[in-house]
């Protein structure tokens, strides 16, 4: 498909997901009313927090640690690339792979004794969980820049910082973005686990729904999370397109 056509498709997808999301969040009370017609005996749960507040909390809990992780990992990855030895680099790559297999529930559980209940332990867990894959992909992406390109850059008289910012980072970005994509999507869904340790967000209706066997309640938390994750994913579709366009 020609590039412009693909770009258009990506925008159609993004808009469709965003529209569904807004419809669900603000039209939930109508869905609830409709559902009530078919399932009259629903457990009476008192709504304490408005839907849009839950969504906002969820966004903060998922995005802030991921962006912080991006800043920390990208910086650390660049420092490792410029000053690190081959051993430290491969250590970072292995750590990243091991980190991805570590369950996020475990990190949340482990951080509660230190940080107490609330948003913080959850955000710390998500931060730790995002740092490793992004760091791994930063190191890999920078190392994968073709040797001829870096040699030409050096031979033309770029210093280390110029090489990093003008050549290596732009070329490593698609690989870094792939790491960020994974981290972000996992964190959007993993942020629901925070409800078990007193954090806010869309985990609250899910946990409440499970306790009371209320399917609609579970859906109330799940659907927005699903759509947010899909939307985040579609935001990265462009990054891939750019890579294939620029070789």
């Amino acid at each position, binding site marked *: 498909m020609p590039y412009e056509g693909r770009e258009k498709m990506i925008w159609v997808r993004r808009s469709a997901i965003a529209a569904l999301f807004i419809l669900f969040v603000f039209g939930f009370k109508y869905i609830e009313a409709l559902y009530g017609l078919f399932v009259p005996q629903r457990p009476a749960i008192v709504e304490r927090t408005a839907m849009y507040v839950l969504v906002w909390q969820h966004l903060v809990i998922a995005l802030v640690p991921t962006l912080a992780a991006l800043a920390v990992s990208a910086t650390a990855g660049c420092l490792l690339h410029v000053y690190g030895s081959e051993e430290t680099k491969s250590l970072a790559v292995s750590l990243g792979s091991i980190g991805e297999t570590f369950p996020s529930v475990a990190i949340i559980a482990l951080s509660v004794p230190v940080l107490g209940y609330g948003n913080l332990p959850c955000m710390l867990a998500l931060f730790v969980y995002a740092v490793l894959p992004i760091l791994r992909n930063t190191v890999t992406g920078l190392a994968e820049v073709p040797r001829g*390109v*870096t*040699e*030409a850059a050096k031979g033309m008289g*770029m210093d280390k910082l*110029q090489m990093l910012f003008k050549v290596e980072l732009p070329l490593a970005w698609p690989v870094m973005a792939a790491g960020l994509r994974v981290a972000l999507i996992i964190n959007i869904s993993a942020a629901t686990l925070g409800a078990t340790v007193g954090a806010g967000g869309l985990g609250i209706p899910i946990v409440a729904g499970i306790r009371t066997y209320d399917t609609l309640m579970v859906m109330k938390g799940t659907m927005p999370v699903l759509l947010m994750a899909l939307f985040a994913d579609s935001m990265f579709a462009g990054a891939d397109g750019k890579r294939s*366009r*620029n*070789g």
Partner: protein
Amino acid sequence: MAMISIENLHKSYGSQAALDGFSLEVEEGELMVLIGPSGCGKSTLLKCVNRMVASDSGSIALAGRPVTDYKEELLRRGIGYCIQEVGLFPHLDVYENIAVVPRLLRWPEGRIRERVDRLIAISGLSAGHLRKHPRQLSGGEAQRVGVLRALASDPPVLLMDEPFGAVDPLNRHTLQAEFLKMQKELKKTVVFVTHDVDEAILLADRIALMEKGRLVAVDAPQGLEARLDEAFIGDFLGSEYPLRLLGRYAVKELGLCGNGAEGGPEGDALRLEMEPGMTLKDLLSGLIRAEGDYVLVTTPEGRDIRLSFSDIKCLMKGARR
């Protein structure tokens, strides 16, 4: 004074000596080809000039000033550098690729544009290539951009490490011819690394033959012919070197200097068109193909000239003067 003076250069990797007391002077405007078997240190030597590789001892001076006097990056910005991998930046278009060094030197945008336009004009590329990205270029086009990028800031010295090595033979020949034409106009001091004897013969003002980190011989391509009996020279250049040397001389440039009778018995004699790139080698091949004593060469003006083997010998003599 020589543009590049290399004196008693040593460089070893571990116990392996890449350069072992290498000395060479390259004159201003000269195209010096470094040739030798793989691992003879020719690339290492090239990289010592712009300090991509640090030598262990010895010295290199550019126009009398030691390269170690400069800050590494500033030295490299003043020297054109062109490698076999090309190493174009995939995320930048052709214009931006050529503009890299001028931008490092903080040229104003107007001057950069002017320079890029001028370079495109003397190359085999068109202005339509400027907004393309490297992955949209053929191998030959990418190599041309690589050469232009090295020439972008108009550096006096150009270092080229097998720049046409990865291109197919037909394209390589075109690129060599184009580069030679550009060099005749620009008169850069060029150090050109290759392992291709034909390429060396075609391009070189002088050829520096290397073996095991040492200079074996440095001479004009026709000068090396007389030294084929010397041990390594004959082995590396091969006994067919004089034949290859014929490829250096364009029949057109030599002029037919009154050789060969005009016309003559037509009959079934082999007739060759005199194209601009026709060399003495093509002429000799024609003679072999003709299985006769002469070939008929049609000049661009439409005259037929009869050339025999003794005419080639005469042309050779003229070329060597």
